[in-house]
C-alpha cells in the first residue's frame, strides 16, 4: 500500500495528470481498434499478437527498472498490451465459432468475455485469500469478512510493474464482465435496475476514488490508483453510450474531440516523463553528495 498524505497542490497536480493519462490511453486504445477494423481489418489478429509480445516484453523489462513510478508507467502499458491481445483473441475465437452480435448490439468478443465470470471469480477468490496482496479494496474485504489470520504484509514492494499490469487487466476485466452481465436482456438489460445501480454506484465511487487519489503525491501511486478511478468512470461512459445518450468519439471517430483527448494524453505523457527524469536526476545527485 502506498503512503497517504494530506491533500496538497502537488497531489492535485499528480492526480489530474494521471487521470488524463489513463483516460487518454483508454480512448486511444479504443480508437486504434476501431480504425484497424474500419481501414485495415486484415491486420487485426497480427496486431493482437504484436500487442501480446510487446506487453510481455514490457512487463519483463520492468524487472530492470528501479523507480516505482517508472514501474507503474510501464506496468500500465504492459497491461494494456496484454489486454488488447486478450480482446483480439476473443475476437478471433468469436470469428472461428461464428458468434453473432446480440440484438442490442453487443459485440461477439464481449459476449464470450461475459462467460469468463466464473474464471474471474476464481482469480478473485485467490487474491482475496492471498495475504500478501495489498490492494486496498481486497484488503478492505479481507478485513470485513474476517479473513486475516495474521498481521498485514509489510515491507517495500519492488515489482510494481507486473503488479500494475495485473491490476489494469483485473480491473478492466471485472468491469467488462459486470457491464456485459447487466446488458444481457435475458438477465437484466440496459434499462434494468442493475445497470441503473451500476451507473449510480460508478458515478459515486469515481468521486470517492478521486478524493482518495488526491492524497498520493507520487506518480508511482497516482498512476496505479488512477486505473480503477478512470475505469469506474468509463462504466458510466459505456452505459450512456448504450442508452443512446452519448456518441462515443472513439467509436464514431469524432476527430475534433479525439484530437483534444490525444493532445491531453501527449501533454500528460510529457509531464509524467519530465517529472520522472527530474526525480531520477535528483536521486543521482543526492547519491553523489553521500
Amino acid at each position, binding site marked *: 500500500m502506498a503512503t497517504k498524505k494530506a491533500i496538497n497542490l502537488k497531489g492535485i497536480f499528480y492526480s489530474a495528470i494521471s487521470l488524463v493519462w489513463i483516460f487518454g490511453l483508454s480512448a486511444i486504445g479504443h480508437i486504434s481498434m476501431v480504425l484497424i477494423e*474500419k*481501414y*485495415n481489418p*486484415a*491486420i487485426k489478429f*497480427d*496486431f493482437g499478437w*504484436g*500487442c501480446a509480445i*510487446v506487453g510481455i*516484453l*514490457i512487463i519483463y*523489462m520492468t524487472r530492470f527498472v528501479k523507480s516505482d513510478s*517508472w514501474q507503474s508507467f*510501464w506496468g500500465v*502499458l504492459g497491461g494494456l*498490451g496484454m489486454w488488447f491481445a486478450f480482446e483480439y483473441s476473443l475476437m478471433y475465437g*468469436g*470469428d472461428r465459432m*461464428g*458468434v*453473432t*452480435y*446480440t*440484438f*442490442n*448490439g453487443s459485440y*461477439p468478443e464481449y459476449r464470450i468475455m461475459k462467460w469468463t465470470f466464473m474464471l474471474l471469480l476464481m482469480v478473485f477468490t485467490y487474491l482475496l485469500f492471498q495475504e500478501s496482496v495489498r490492494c486496498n479494496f481486497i484488503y478492505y474485504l479481507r478485513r470485513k469478512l474476517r479473513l486475516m489470520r495474521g498481521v498485514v504484509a509489510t515491507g517495500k514492494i519492488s515489482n510494481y510493474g507486473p503488479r500494475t499490469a495485473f491490476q489494469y487487466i483485473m480491473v478492466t476485466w471485472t468491469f467488462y464482465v459486470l457491464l456485459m452481465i447487466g446488458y444481457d*436482456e*435475458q438477465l437484466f438489460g*440496459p434499462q434494468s435496475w442493475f445497470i441503473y445501480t451500476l451507473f449510480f454506484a460508478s458515478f459515486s465511487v469515481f468521486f470517492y476514488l478521486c478524493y482518495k487519489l488526491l492524497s498520493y503525491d507520487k506518480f508511482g501511486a497516482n498512476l496505479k490508483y488512477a486505473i480503477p478511478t478512470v475505469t469506474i468512470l468509463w462504466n458510466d461512459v459505456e452505459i450512456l453510450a448504450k*442508452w*443512446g445518450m452519448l*456518441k462515443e468519439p472513439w467509436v*464514431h471517430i*469524432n476527430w475534433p474531440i479525439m484530437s483534444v483527448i490525444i493532445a491531453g494524453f501527449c501533454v500528460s505523457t510529457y509531464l509524467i516523463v519530465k517529472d520522472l527524469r527530474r526525480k531520477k536526476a535528483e536521486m543521482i545527485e543526492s547519491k553523489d553528495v553521500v
Partner: protein
Amino acid sequence: MKHWKVLPVVLMILFLAGSSQAEEKSSKETHAEKVKAMEDTFWAASKAGNTVKGIIVEGNSFFNGTTAPQDKPYTEEELLAAKISAERNSKLFILAEDGTLYYPTCKKGQSVSQSDQAHRIPRVLTEEQKKEGMFTWSNMVPLTGRKVELYGEIYTGYAGVKGIHIKSIYYEGEYLVGE
C-alpha cells in the same frame, strides 16, 4: 542501452506502419473511395430495381409455423423471441415484398464458411443519415423484424428459396432501436 525504454514503443510503431503499408500496396483504393463506390453501386441498383426489399425474419419460428410474418407483422412478444433466437444463432432469412424467401450466404465458390449473421455488412447511408453520424455498418441480428433493402449477388437456391450474398444494406432509422 540508455534509451531502451522507448524500444517497445518503436517496435509497435514499426509493426503498425509495416502492416498498413503492406495493405496499402495490395489495394490502392482508399477507404473513402471504396465507400463511395459501394454507395454508387447500391443507389444505381436500387434505381434499376435490382435490389431486394423485404423484412428480416427468424428461421426457426418461421419454418415450424410458430410465427407467420408473411401474413402479419411480428407482435412485440414474437419480435423479442425472434431476436433472442437470432442472437442464439437461429438462421435469419429475408422475406421479400414479392414473397420470395432469401437465404443470406457467402460468395459462390467459397467452400469453408460460416453463418452470414456473424458478419458486419457495409451500410449505405443517405446524406441526412450521414449528418446524424449513424453507424456505417450493420449486423443482421439487431435488424430482425425490420424492413431493409439489400444489394448483392442472387443465387438460384433450391425449391423456391433463393440465396443472396449481401454486399450492402440500407434501412431507415438507427442501427440499434432506442438510440
